[in-house]
């Protein structure tokens, strides 16, 4: 007999593995409030991991007790199993261990890899760039393609290409810089990290790729919002939209040896950003915000309670 906790966790895991990310990925409201949507995605990612590993653990440990604290205590204190331990219990325990190790391993691995790549980028940058005259804390990279990016970390770097500076006027450039600064100020690379791990650990799960793409898009929208809020000028939304379209036009024109094979990643995401800047959707009502945040909280609370609750 499957303990009720394991069954409930398995149902939750199944919901979080497909229908929930599919619904949130298709919903229209996230672009009205990217930050709340990002919180929801984080909750889905975390609750998904908790419930699937939890379900396997609770089922695998069922012969020792019908709740995780009870069974865990029994195993730790070396008590014999009360019920016979069958093959499926061992399979569940092995799967739980493999999945947990894989998720944590991928997380550690991608952390280490990005740290190494960032160091290399920084070394290269310090060699080839000079401070940008137009923007004191940014660096200027001599390259015809209009590109802006930032390297997060203890000493963050904001980089503009000379192509970007040539293409945009001062107000548009300020909008680009404000966008990149928003990424750095809110540590958006950390929002992406769990989804990099999910996608690498479970490449067969379409929801993992979908979630990663959605989070990537929301992070850009959030940075757009922050940038627009911090900009002066008559119409900062339009200025930022112009900057995006100009940067895209240059890139699509094949300027200066941009490897085109790798480019078609963002797809419709750029259009969504521009449309959103030009015709801003009405902000989410306070009640809807609160409801979404409450759902995110519940998502985390339910598997935690199920895992820690005594046997049902």
């Amino acid at each position: 007999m499957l303990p009720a906790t394991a069954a409930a966790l398995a149902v939750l895991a199944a919901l979080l593995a497909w229908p929930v990310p599919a619904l949130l990925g298709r919903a229209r409201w996230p672009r009205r409030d990217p930050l709340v949507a990002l919180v929801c995605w984080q909750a889905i990612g975390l609750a998904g991991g908790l419930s699937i590993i939890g379900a396997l653990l609770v089922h695998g440990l069922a012969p020792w007790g019908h709740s995780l604290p009870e069974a865990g205590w029994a195993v730790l204190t070396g008590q014999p199993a009360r019920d016979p331990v069958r093959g499926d219990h061992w399979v569940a325990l092995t799967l739980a261990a493999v999945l947990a190790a894989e998720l944590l391993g991928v997380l550690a691995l991608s952390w280490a890899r990005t740290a190494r790549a960032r160091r290399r980028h920084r070394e290269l940058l310090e060699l080839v760039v000079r401070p940008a005259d137009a923007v004191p804390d940014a660096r200027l990279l001599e390259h015809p393609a209009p590109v802006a990016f930032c390297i997060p970390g203890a000493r963050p770097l904001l980089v503009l290409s000379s192509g970007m500076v040539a293409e945009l006027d001062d107000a548009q450039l300020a909008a680009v810089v404000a966008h990149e600064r928003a990424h750095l100020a809110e540590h958006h690379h950390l929002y992406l990290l769990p989804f990099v791990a999910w996608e690498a650990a479970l490449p067969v799960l379409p929801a993992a790729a979908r979630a990663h793409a959605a989070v990537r898009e929301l992070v850009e929208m959030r940075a757009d919002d922050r940038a627009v809020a911090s900009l002066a000028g008559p119409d900062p939304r339009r200025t930022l939209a112009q900057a995006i379209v100009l940067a895209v036009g240059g890139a699509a024109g094949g300027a200066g040896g941009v490897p085109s094979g790798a480019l078609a990643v963002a797809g419709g995401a750029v259009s969504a950003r521009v449309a959103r800047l030009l015709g801003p959707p009405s902000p989410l009502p306070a009640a809807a915000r609160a409801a979404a945040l409450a759902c995110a909280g519940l998502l985390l609370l339910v598997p935690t309670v199920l895992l820690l609750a005594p046997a049902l």
Partner: protein
Amino acid sequence: MASLGDLERTVMGVLWAADGPVAAAELRDALADRELALTTVHTVLSRLEGKGFVRHDDARPRRFRPTATREQHAAELMHEVLGASADRQAVLARFVGGVDPEEARLLRQLLAES
């Protein structure tokens, strides 16, 4: 007191401007206005060598030359930032990802109509 990064950039500048390999003592003389000790020049050179930016030959004294031009380094960086490199996560998604020409055209239209 100049930072090491600043010194590295300056030394690379001299190496890039030179016609051929340059010895440490020549570098010190070329940067005479900075009054560097020869050991400092060697420190900077070995750091640059550790990062793969310079190579030395077997002549006596050793002479150093850059492994690539400034443009090649810039191109390598751009390739990693723009390209399909697996470590793209290292930079935070660039300002705009790539779009195909059709979407670029639609975007310009969108902007013109609003």
